[in-house]
């Protein structure tokens, strides 16, 4: 081969390569800045989530994107979202925390939310892998004929148990329990919890006096302490279930529900529960636990981040060492078993607007970004901060922290915004070294204990029932914790009140749905 021929071939190869590479370059061209409207609940206002700190810039500059951030509160998020979606005016990207399949189906049928292209899983594999971990993606796609939502995986790589259950546990004043001679255990039955409350009430080891609130949390969390702990059919995800004959039943109408309510009412009437728990807003009950130190028991997320937050709060507000004074435990039914409905590995979903999906370049850039956020590299920065600044790899490959504190403490943009872009923080929380190892281990222990105690009392997810939709089903507007609390607070005889409530609920809302579901799925 002559030199001339060699160079001709080389030139041809270079030109061919350039020709092939050209579309890819154009595809990866991120010179144009794209701005996206992004709505999340609970994010503080007044923060520049695009470039407010190095943490935000690390992500936005890589993809040359900007956020036009819409911050809602948890109280009004869903209302506003429904109005936007129904008026065809939803933001480009929305974190929706109360995923409702029926609503999604309605939106999908009407083209009000974006449908991802059929080949999205091949094009964005990291996102697809995380999506697959939820276990519900296929179920939803099968019913809708495409991907219209990206459910947030609670756990991606570090799921502690399967089937999954909720993380809520009891946070209890260990020092008071020890002072009263109460045995410290990993799980307590509801009856034992009530006994503990009675003992603390009698002995008042914290010298709190008249302000002592024994079991203290708001209505929604109180359900975890009583009805949910006592009867799996009371869980909103488990209210419709198949009995041993394959017939579909409604949990709140079962005798077990009445028994659970009787215990709940007894605790209230005995003064073991904050007498005004129904007026408490989110966190107010927990605040009495770690701010004023007037509560003996509260319910909280059994996550390392919450234990760490409580540690800081106890130290700051009460000058107490969390590890010395707080104990976390699983609440079980009277039979010592953990009662629950299986929790699918997702919480809420990410929705994209149809306008965004149609705008190919903007859509693809956002999907590139979401795909990257599911990589290990991005997760490390999301959860730990910037490499070389907040952490680094040690010689043995382990992670070495360079600064103290959590990422939310170091970067204001991380608060309730970046951390839950897609994969939820629960996953990395199991291994996140910014939280004390003991807390992370405790989280896993509690999950494993629930698993162990709930082998035959955790209702498995039945997707046909959970994702069943019809006009009659959509008209059921019960907020179950509110219904249970209203029943036990009502004057008169509980059984009579419950019977009247069940009768009205069945006649008006529930029986038509049971009939429809039994016709479709009953006896199978």
């Amino acid at each position, binding site marked *: 081969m002559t030199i001339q021929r060699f160079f001709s071939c080389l030139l041809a190869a270079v030109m061919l390569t350039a020709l092939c590479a050209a579309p890819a370059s154009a595809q990866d061209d991120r010179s144009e800045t794209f701005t996206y409207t992004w709505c999340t609940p609970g994010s503080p206002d007044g923060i520049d989530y695009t470039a407010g700190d190095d943490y935000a810039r690390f992500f936005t500059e890589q993809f040359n994107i900007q956020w036009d951030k819409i911050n809602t509160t948890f109280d009004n998020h869903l209302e506003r979202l429904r109005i936007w979606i129904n008026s065809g005016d939803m933001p480009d990207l929305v974190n929706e925390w109360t995923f409702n399949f029926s609503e999604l189906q309605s939106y999908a049928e*009407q083209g009000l939310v974006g449908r991802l292209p059929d080949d999205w899983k091949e094009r964005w594999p990291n996102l697809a892998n995380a999506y697959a971990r939820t276990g519900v993606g296929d179920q939803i796609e099968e019913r809708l004929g495409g991907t219209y939502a990206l459910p947030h995986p609670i756990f991606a790589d570090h799921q502690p148990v399967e089937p999954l259950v909720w993380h809520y546990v009891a946070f209890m004043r260990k020092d008071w329990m020890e002072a009263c001679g109460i045995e410290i255990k990993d799980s307590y039955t509801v009856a034992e919890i009530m006994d503990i409350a009675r003992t603390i009430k009698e002995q008042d080891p914290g010298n709190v006096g008249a302000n002592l609130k024994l079991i203290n949390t708001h*209505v929604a969390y109180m359900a975890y302490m009583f009805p949910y702990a006592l009867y799996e059919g009371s869980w909103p995800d488990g209210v419709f279930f198949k009995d041993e004959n394959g017939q579909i039943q409604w949990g709140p109408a079962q005798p077990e529900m009445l028994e659970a309510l009787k215990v709940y009412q007894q605790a209230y009437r005995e003064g073991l529960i904050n007498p005004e728990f*129904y*007026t408490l807003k989110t966190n107010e009950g927990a605040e009495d636990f770690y701010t004023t130190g007037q509560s003996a028991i509260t319910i909280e997320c059994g996550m390392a981040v919450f234990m760490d937050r409580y540690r800081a709060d106890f130290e700051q507000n009460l000058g107490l060492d969390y590890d010395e004074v707080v104990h976390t435990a699983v609440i079980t039914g009277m039979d010592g078993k953990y009662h629950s409905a299986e929790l699918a590995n997702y919480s809420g979903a990410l929705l994209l607007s149809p306008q965004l999906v149609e705008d190919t370049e903007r859509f693809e850039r956002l999907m590139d970004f979401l795909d990257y956020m599911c990589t290990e590299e991005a997760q490390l920065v999301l959860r730990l901060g910037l490499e070389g600044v907040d952490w680094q790899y040690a010689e043995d490959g382990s992670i070495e922290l360079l600064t103290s504190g959590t990422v939310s403490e170091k970067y204001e943009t991380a608060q309730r915004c970046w951390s839950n872009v897609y994969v939820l923080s629960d996953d990395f929380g199991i291994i996140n070294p910014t939280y004390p190892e003991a807390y992370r281990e405790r989280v896993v222990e509690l999950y494993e204990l629930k698993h162990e105690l709930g082998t035959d009392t955790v209702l498995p997810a039945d997707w046909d029932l959970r994702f069943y939709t019809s*006009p009659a089903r959509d008209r059921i507007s019960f907020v179950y914790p509110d219904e249970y609390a209203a029943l036990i607070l009502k004057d008169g005889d509980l059984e009579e009140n419950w019977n009247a409530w069940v009768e009205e609920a069945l006649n008006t809302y529930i029986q038509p749905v049971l009939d429809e579901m039994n016709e479709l799925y009953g006896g199978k």
Partner: protein
Amino acid sequence: MSQVLQTSKHFQRPRGLAAAIYKNRAVYTLLLPGLIWYLVFAYGPMGGLSLAFKDYRANLGIWGSPWVGMQNYHYVFRDAAFWRSVWRTLFINLGRLIFEFPMPVILSLILNELRMPRYKKVLQTIFTFPHFLSWVIVSSVMINFLSVEGLVNSIVKSLGGSAFNFLGNTTAFQPMLYITSIWKSAGWSAIIYLAAISGIDMDQYEAAQIDGASRLQRIAHITLPNIMPTVTVMFILQTGSIMSAGFDQIFNLSNVAVRDVSETLDMYIYRITFQAPPDFGFSMAVSLFRSVINMVLLVLADRGAKLMGGSGLFA
């Protein structure tokens, strides 16, 4: 012949009206913004009422959504909670007419009798100020005041009594609504009566004084009769909103313990609209029902006022 004349008059009238409008075009131009506002924001959206008879599909819009006849009402009227909310709304708001409505009138009469202008202004400002607080703030204050550990119970306990559960007591809920509403709104509502009082001819008071009328007699025989047309109009207006008053207040002051006495029609509409997958047809059916009842009550109150020899809203 007379029929021909009437017909020709009938045809001439619009021309006369058009001529009159043209002649006074400057004045009518001033009317335009208000007219446009009403058309765009008051009458235009009334087309949305058709949703009560439709299965609303956002992608098809209000006009394109399919008609379903009375189907939404079939569901509404079958719901016992709906009927309970209707009666509860009537009951609460009738109480408002009895207990709340007279308060601004009484307050305006008292303020009018004050003889120290500066003191009167200070009091008026104090009474008017709560109107500018939102119900979110007022309810937070009330919850702090009335909770078991709140100010009121602390005083009760310090006097040797035992704490009373105001916030979770179904009997106390309705009086609490009236008291908070009077505290918040009486001062503001009194302004309109004070304005009416200020228009009364002072000669009447002077003549009564010369005749030896006491202050109470002057109030009863001069002030009250003079402001009665205003009171009547306000009464009719309040009757016209009897099915829809007070959502903010009830939403913020209620809780699950008093749900049986606090789910008014507005709260019911909120629940079915925002605590379940949205069904705008269903929600609109309830809203339309409420509006129709309000309208009927408004007309009845107007006719009633006229039958009793008073003035009404409509000619």
